[in-house]
């Protein structure tokens, strides 16, 4: 029998054309455009004080978000899988809620809640804590939009892992904390890292929620994506080029990391 039907080649070619046209071509176009004026011009647009400050703010807020997400996401996945409690089904269904909320709407909701005219906002400003148009607002927005990533990555692994090993360690006298750190955590690590990387890459590029909640204040609340948008708005694509290329490189690095992680997970899964 013919093992390679003629349709296969056609389908594969269609896929190549589709991916080539929609993904490779735009990336090639921005790469060429960024080098058009020479590497020095590109470097200058990256190393301007304002661009560097925006990039630093982006990385710092994304990093803080990631640490919080790793801890709270793992904890949430753990209680959702292991502990019974009233309302669990509803909570489990609502975990994906942030995927349904448009990013602009996320920003608006945070301004309603923490804005200077709100009750909470005025209380917080009494403590000298500014949320909107400041770093805490950015981090809150990032935490909202990335909330499901770590949970949804850890949950299925935890479900497949029966409580047997944990129980065995516990009967042998290990404390709960010790069981979690020595037995559960190592098994969950690849999925935690996957969730962390996904949320980090989402956060580095986040725009809609941040532009609403933090605005566009240079050196204070302006993140990389908002900086790029500002440069495009003021008709300066050359200025937008630098950070766009940096964000693209970060995307590639995260993807390669995720890919390696996937293969690692597959390897250890195959051995056990």
């Amino acid at each position, binding site marked *: 029998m013919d093992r390679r039907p003629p349709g296969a080649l056609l389908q594969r070619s269609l896929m190549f054309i589709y991916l080539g046209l929609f993904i490779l071509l*735009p990336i090639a176009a921005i790469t060429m455009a960024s080098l058009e004026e020479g590497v020095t011009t590109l470097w200058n647009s990256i190393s301007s004080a304002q661009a560097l400050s925006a990039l630093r703010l982006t990385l710092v807020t994304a990093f803080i978000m990631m640490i919080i997400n790793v801890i709270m996401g793992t*904890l949430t996945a753990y209680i959702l899988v292991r502990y019974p409690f009233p309302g669990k089904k509803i909570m489990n269904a*609502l975990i994906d809620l942030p*995927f*349904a*909320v*448009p990013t602009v709407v996320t920003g608006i909701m945070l301004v309603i809640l923490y804005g200077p005219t709100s009750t909470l906002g005025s209380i917080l400003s009494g403590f000298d804590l500014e949320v909107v148009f400041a770093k805490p607002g950015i981090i809150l927005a990032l935490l909202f939009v990335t*909330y499901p990533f770590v949970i949804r990555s850890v949950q299925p692994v935890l479900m497949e892992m029966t409580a047997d090993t944990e129980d065995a360690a516990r009967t042998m006298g290990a404390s709960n904390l010790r069981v979690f750190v020595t037995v559960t955590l190592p098994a969950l690590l690849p999925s935690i890292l996957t969730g962390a990387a996904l949320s980090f890459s989402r956060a580095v590029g986040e725009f809609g929620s941040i532009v609403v909640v933090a605005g566009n204040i240079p050196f204070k609340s302006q993140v990389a994506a908002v900086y790029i*948008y500002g440069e*495009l708005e003021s008709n300066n694509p050359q200025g937008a080029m630098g950070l766009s290329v940096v964000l693209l490189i970060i995307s590639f690095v995260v993807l390669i990391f995720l890919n390696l992680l996937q293969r690692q997970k597959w390897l250890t899964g195959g051995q056990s």
Partner: protein
Amino acid sequence: MNMSLKKSHHMGRWILTAIAVSWFMILILVPVGGLLQKLMTQPFAEIYRSLQTATAARAFLLTAKVTFLAVAINMVMGILMAKVIVTQKFRGKLFIEGLIDLPFAISPVVVGFMLVILFGPYGWLGGLLESVGVKVIYATPGIVIATVFVTLPFVAKEVIPVYQQAGLQSEEAAQVLGASQWQAFWWVTLPTIKWGVIYGVTLALARSLGEFGAVLVVSGSIINQTETATLFIHQQFTDFNYTSAYTASLLIAAIAFIILIGIEWLAKSKKET
């Protein structure tokens, strides 16, 4: 001794659960509740009127059109890509899988910028298309292309694992029994990957209803022409028209939420029976 140990164990459980649930409520539910509460303090007539404008109607209609087109394209191409990835062996497969994942990792603003470079009047394709009278940037085609880009991975990502699990035996068996390749796919494979397709389409729908950054850059946000629902919300919010901004926000989030949670719920109940 054993009793007290058990008790402390329960105590620990209770505390951990309380922390995770409170975190979820403060971070996710309270902001949503805040929006609902804000709307409830407005007179109903004003809420109703705020979306009765032609601008609002056009924005929602444009979002509906764009979402339909982008999701339809990605449903067909997503199934095709999953089929090729699962059933065929070829060089550079890992690279292709990476390419499919890429749109998730790229900032929406950068997506928009790349498309402006490519399809703008001086771009490789922009000049070509403009000479035959097709305007992409600052027009509807650009919005569709941007939405296709950001939702490209969803269907393929959801279908590939389901397809892999289903295996190829039954499809091959059907072909041995005389079914054509197309028939075998339509009658044997498609029913088994159905839920992967549905779930991928749902996620793509939610994302394209809510897409903002990429669309903002390519559309130029021309009121009544290239303004989608999310651009409308942003415009109303920055113009201090809070009632219509909040109403439209709630409407679009509710639509996406009902689709997303509804399908998830349906899938779960189908799988259990």
